[in-house]
């Protein structure tokens, strides 16, 4: 790993200022960034830890009922503190990686990284969440721009993520046991104005909404509603763990399981 200067500001403004530096990068839990730095895939000159900013940690409920999660909140804290207000989200956070990864890795780091097999992007897109940064609010539908690509500008910090709470929801993760990421994962959420279905781990384009299933489930929220639909393997990820056709099939299987589990 190349040398860098380490700073740990205690406010969002302080972090934003430190990130103005050329080649500066934010450090969340480091569970993705530190391994990338060891491989020299990332080589910041200044690393700005977000771990000292108290206002970016924790779970709260907004006036409109949305669950708000500070951008530097570790997965384990979301699993514990969102369990009563948004159980499907808490269960997703509690299924990421392993306990030690969950004690360090953060929601902001996961959404900024936008790994095509990560879990949080499915929850954010599937819930129509709002990604709040130090400069603006971004709707999840406008945020994910493809594998490892997002609408974030250089130096922009995810300070909070707001999740509208659905009537029913569930996340089904088909585990890739070596990486402990999702081989494919589907997040289904039923809101008063319709159902959202977000798929991770499957597409070369990163997380996406399966709109045909959304329409079918909005009319009839039952596993049978998606029975007649098919998912095209075109554009799906193919690797030694699964072919594009295998993943396309998993999308449908997991959607049915998620609907059944959401009830």
């Amino acid at each position, binding site marked *: *790993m190349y040398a860098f200067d380490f700073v740990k500001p205690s406010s969002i403004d302080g972090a934003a200022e430190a990130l103005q530096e050329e080649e500066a990068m934010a450090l969340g839990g*480091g569970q993705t960034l530190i391994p990338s730095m060891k491989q020299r895939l990332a080589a910041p000159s200044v690393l700005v830890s977000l771990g000292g900013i108290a206002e970016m940690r924790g779970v709260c409920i907004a006036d409109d009922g949305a669950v708000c999660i500070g951008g530097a909140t570790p997965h384990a804290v979301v699993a514990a503190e969102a369990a009563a207000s948004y159980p499907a989200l808490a269960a997703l956070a509690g299924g990421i990686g392993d*306990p030690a990864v969950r004690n360090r890795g953060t929601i902001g780091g996961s959404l900024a990284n936008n790994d095509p097999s990560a879990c949080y992007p499915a929850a954010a897109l599937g819930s129509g969440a709002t990604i709040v940064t130090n400069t603006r609010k971004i709707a999840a539908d406008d945020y994910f721009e493809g594998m490892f690509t997002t609408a974030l500008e250089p130096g922009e910090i995810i300070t909070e993520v707001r999740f509208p709470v659905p009537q029913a929801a569930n996340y089904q993760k088909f585990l890739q046991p070596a990486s402990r990421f999702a081989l494919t994962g589907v997040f289904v959420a039923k809101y008063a104005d319709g159902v959202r279905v977000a798929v991770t781990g499957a597409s070369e384009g990163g997380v996406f909404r399966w709109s045909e299933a959304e329409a079918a489930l909005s009319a009839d929220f039952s596993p049978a509603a998606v029975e007649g639909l098919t998912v095209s393997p075109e554009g799906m990820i193919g690797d030694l763990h699964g072919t594009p056709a295998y993943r396309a099939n998993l999308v449908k299987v997991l959607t049915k399981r998620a609907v059944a589990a959401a009830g």
Partner: protein
Amino acid sequence: MTKVSMTVNGRSMSGDIEGRTLLVDFLRQGLGLTGTHVGCDTSQCGACVVHVDGKAVKSCTVFAADVAGAEVTTIEGMGNPDGSLGVIQQAFQDHHGLQCGFCTPGMVMSAAALLAENPKPTEAEIRHYLEGNICRCTGYHNIVKAIMAASGQDVSAVAAE
């Protein structure tokens, strides 16, 4: 080089580090606490698990500077004050929960974190919690047994060795 201070196994410790110094390197090279092992260095194996403010973390994937001022517990802090093995360590010995011993420091630290959260875990909960700790020798059954025993539970029902 900057100076960093933290409480390690109840004692206040400090040393010089670079920004890139990993917690595990500070513990092993800076403080000479070589009980914490590096198995993979890629956050996969869990041999390097220590506690930071009571939470299990992979010390190969944390910068020392990021945990300045924290309370850190390593395997060296798991024994009794008289030098004898702590309850979890003794259970690993009694139930043959180790062979080469390389994964054991991380296993014991993960087990301690689990029992702090959940003092009477089921066999399934133990296996699930150890997801990030890899052992190349034992096949896990005896590790699970040891943790059941350390939590004061009957181990006769745990899968055969």
